[in-house]
């Protein structure tokens, strides 16, 4: 499989009154054609900011991509002009969000909102765009498409709206779809349907998906490759089965342990002790050190780098450096 997008040493910082937050801190990964990559982590770990950096939509003022490259089909997205980037957005790279209820404009009809990217990117006429919009609504499994096209967002349920968001996102047959917690705000039964639709389009169009989630169930169902982020950094990544079977980083181990498993009732659900560190107070160390059971002296003073720890699996943890040294 060919690489579709390659992110190298991406850093995105936010300047606040109290100091600089390194929301994304030297992150590198790639997504190959037709592959689903899941980015996992607690809220505030930088996964959404990574997505917004790729889209070129980091909120200014304050937020800024300060370093790195994002290669998409041979071009560095960070070097493109605003207009070039805009013609990619919603066309070759598109995105859906966590809150379908608030992600659609309340005063515009559904149909109009689906037609917009068609008018801008495909240069369709209004009539063609409307026809295509209705096809798209049907494609995401909504009946009475005509009627839906003429309704306002508040008249539809969250699940329906997320389907509409998907319809908008796939209208330009994108090569990459970024889905930022697409099912978090939805009921469990609806979640499964939305994931089904995503998978279906991925297979039909050989689309790549970058799925951001904190739900390991979703990861298990969708991912080919998993990236685990903590405090703005990648702490572990690997092929999905490999990673679930033998997580290497203590944080990943904790995450997997805290997921309840059916038929295996324990007295108490496991949770990782402690809290995510204050992003303003990070010092040269492993950012996970104060929550880690295996914390060693070196963890408090030096940051581990991402290293190969197995076949198609990398982790940033001193435990494995040590292991290599001792071996």
């Amino acid at each position, binding site marked *: 499989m060919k690489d579709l997008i390659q992110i190298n040493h991406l850093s995105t910082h936010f300047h606040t009154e109290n100091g600089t937050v390194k929301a994304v801190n030297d992150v590198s990964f790639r997504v190959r054609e037709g592959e689903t990559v899941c980015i996992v982590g607690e809220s505030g770990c930088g996964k959404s900011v990574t997505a917004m950096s790729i889209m070129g939509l980091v909120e200014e003022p304050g937020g800024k991509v300060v370093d790195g490259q994002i290669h998409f089909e041979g071009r560095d997205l960070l070097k493109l002009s605003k207009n070039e980037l805009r013609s*990619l957005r919603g066309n070759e790279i598109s995105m859906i*969000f966590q809150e379908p209820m608030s992600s659609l*404009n309340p*005063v515009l009809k559904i149909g109009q909102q689906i037609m*917009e990217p068609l008018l801008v990117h495909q240069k369709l006429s209004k009539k063609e765009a409307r026809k295509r919009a209705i096809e798209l609504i049907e494609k995401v499994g909504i009946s009475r498409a005509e009627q839906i096209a003429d309704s306002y967002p508040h008249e539809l349920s969250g699940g329906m709206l997320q389907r509409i968001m998907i319809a908008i996102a796939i209208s330009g047959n994108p090569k990459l779809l970024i889905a930022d917690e697409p099912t978090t705000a939805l009921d469990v039964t609806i979640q499964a349907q939305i994931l089904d639709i995503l998978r279906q389009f991925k297979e039909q169009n050989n689309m790549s998906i970058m799925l951001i989630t904190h739900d390991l169930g979703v990861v298990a169902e969708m991912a080919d490759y998993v990236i685990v982020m903590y405090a703005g950094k990648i702490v572990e990544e690997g092929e999905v089965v490999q990673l679930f079977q033998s997580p290497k980083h203590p944080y990943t181990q904790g995450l997997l342990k805290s997921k309840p498993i059916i038929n295996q009732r324990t007295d108490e659900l496991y949770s990782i002790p402690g809290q995510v560190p204050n992003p303003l107070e990070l010092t040269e160390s492993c950012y996970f050190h104060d929550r880690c059971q295996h914390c060693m002296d070196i963890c408090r003073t030096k940051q581990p780098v991402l290293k190969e720890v197995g076949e198609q699996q990398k982790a940033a943890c001193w435990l494995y450096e040590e292991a290599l040294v001792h071996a």
Partner: protein
Amino acid sequence: MSAYLTKRISYMVIILLAASLLIFCLYALTPGDFISSNIKLSPERKAELREIYGLNKPLLERYGIWMKNALHGDFGFSLAQQKPVLTLFNEYIWNSFLLAAVSTFFTWLIAVIIGVVSAYKQYSWFDTLVMVLIFAAMSLPSFFIGLFLIKICAVDLKWLPPGGMLTTGSNATGLAYVKEVIHHMTLPVVVMTLLGVGSLTRYFRSNMIDVIKQDYIRTARAKGLKENKVLFRHALRNALLPAITLVGFELPSLFGGSLIIEKIFNWPGIGQLYIQSFGLRDYPLLMGFTMLLAVLTVIGTLLSDILYHIADPRVRLH
């Protein structure tokens, strides 16, 4: 909706009735009247006139008569001008409306454009400049800025006429008439726009700042729409929505004239008429005018509510 309307309207009527009583009593309290301030009349003639106008009757009875006539659409007879109050209103109100409508139009136009741009460039130097200008506009003493501009533009530079609606003794017709009126209304319109534009710009700016942070604006950007489309199609529509309620609140100022501006620019509007009549204690006119403003205020509030219901698709359903 209709049950709600009935409730609202009946409340309106009660408030207006209470207001009318209050207005009547206040003017009854006001010292002096048209007759006693007229030194040309003999004491006998004064007593006679009081009898004719019913000024000798007790307060409540006078209120009853006034209210009864008012409900029949008769606001009485101006003592000073010897014309029915409503006829006088009709003569003067359109001049006031002309001034108010034109300046309201410019106020909204400027406020929307500057508010949107300023919100989009929040914290830029342009935005800071706009904020300072907004405060400046909001802090202007209306009569002073009127006088100041007359002094500069009319007296010293002689660009524009200092006041009035037509040049004295002019009998221009057709296009020449229109031109003359425009010439005369420029300064008062500038002043009224200046006075109104500050708070409205600030209102739009803060609305836009709220809207720009919304998820659907992010969606619009993620679709690859041009920034001006994001701003004007997606953001502005949502920012304008709450502003629709303001349209109703503009009602009193559209038809009620402006006491200060009309006096300073000697504009033959209803506010000017009020000030003249106040000096003469022409009560029927004064009460009629105050009542008119009260009615406009109440109707304006109701209108705002209804407009909001019509404009917002989320509210429209219910």
